[in-house]
């Protein structure tokens, strides 16, 4: 005969509508996350589809709820369920979801908005170099980078001494100042905005404004100095530009996108 003794009170049977539901986090990296009530279905889950489709940037779902496998088929991505972390991860490495594609476009626009000057935070310290050409003319430059700011001085046997400083005091703002014996001084400020950037500079006693905006595969650039360009990036890149009294169009292919602020030209 076997006696089974429970030393202390065993857990009471749970009651309530949430006894089987799980509060899970649905995450699309770089875009956002949701907290949703999910129903366990075997080793999978059934989740409300509408908020997930909204997170993905898709329209109305075909059904109010979907399992993880159904979501993979409907969204065309990989869905990973981590039960110990109560986490559903939407993996979209190729940015096929509209919301993820918009994020990539925004990052591209921000990257295009970062002008020369301040270097990423991990780079700090002295830098410099010496250049000499076949005329035996030389240029030496020396600078120091703090990560969010840098200063540089150079001396050329041709043009003399020049110096510059640039800073990225807050994430969307870039400032720079340069002084050259030839050409004078230049002050520049660039602000990264959603899907683009705006830049203003003052050089040679002239004030100029430039800007660019990314709209999906299209980048539009315009300048107060009578220049503009429209670039369409796809399997084949097409760029139409105008500078002064000259207009041109360029069709290109390959892994390197054309610079959206460079005018196509024949020279």
């Amino acid at each position, binding site marked *: *005969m*076997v*006696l*089974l*003794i*429970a*030393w*202390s*009170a*065993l*857990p009471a049977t*749970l009651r309530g509508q*949430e*006894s089987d*539901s*799980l*509060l*899970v986090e649905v995450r699309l990296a770089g875009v956002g996350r949701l*907290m949703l*009530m999910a129903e366990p279905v075997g080793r999978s889950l059934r989740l409300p589809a509408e908020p997930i489709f909204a997170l993905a940037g898709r329209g109305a779902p075909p059904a109010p709820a979907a399992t993880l496998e159904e979501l993979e088929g409907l969204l065309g991505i990989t869905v990973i369920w981590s039960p*110990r*972390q*109560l986490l559903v991860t939407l993996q979209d490495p190729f940015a096929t979801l509209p919301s993820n594609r918009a994020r990539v476009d925004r990052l591209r626009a921000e990257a295009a908005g970062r002008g020369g000057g301040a270097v990423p935070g991990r780079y700090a310290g002295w830098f410099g170099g010496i250049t000499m050409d076949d005329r035996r003319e030389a240029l030496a430059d020396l600078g120091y980078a703090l990560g969010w700011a840098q200063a540089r001085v150079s001396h050329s046997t041709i043009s003399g001494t020049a110096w510059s400083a640039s800073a990225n005091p807050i994430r969307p703002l870039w400032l720079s100042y340069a002084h050259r014996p030839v050409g004078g001084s230049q002050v520049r400020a660039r602000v990264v905005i959603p899907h683009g950037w705006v830049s203003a500079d003052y050089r040679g006693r002239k004030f100029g404004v430039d800007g660019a905006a990314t709209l999906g595969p299209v980048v539009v650039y315009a300048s107060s100095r009578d220049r503009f360009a429209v670039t369409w990036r796809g399997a084949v890149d097409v760029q139409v530009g105008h500078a002064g009294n000259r207009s041109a169009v360029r069709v290109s292919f390959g892994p390197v996108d054309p610079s959206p602020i460079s005018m196509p030209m024949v020279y």
Partner: protein
Amino acid sequence: MRQALVMMVLAVAASQASAQVSSETVLDSTGYATTMVRNNSAEVLDVEVELRHGAVTKERIDLGERVKAVVSPSRFQLAPGESQLVRLLLREPLAADSVIRLVTTLTPRDAREISRTDGGAAAQLRFATRLVTRVRAQ
């Protein structure tokens, strides 16, 4: 014999308390929090998690009614070394002086045989360890 049985019971009870729960859980302004439950023992544990009201009486806390809240998951199993994230979401407003406790009950999946007589009778024990930890609002 009786003394040996008591010693064996105490030894078994001590071996069951090898689980880890955060000593304090902090609810944010929306009444949401997470906590981790880890099985540091060598046995599979059945775990139940619940939120309960408490009443402070003479430097001790008496557990009261269950708090209306989402506890997700409220029941699960942990193999040795496994951890489980538990999400908490209040479904009722709390008074400023409310006392709430997170009650985690851990029960080994397998009963442990501690004694067998010559006649074939055997005693088995399953200890449920209850961990009561503090919950406060931010």
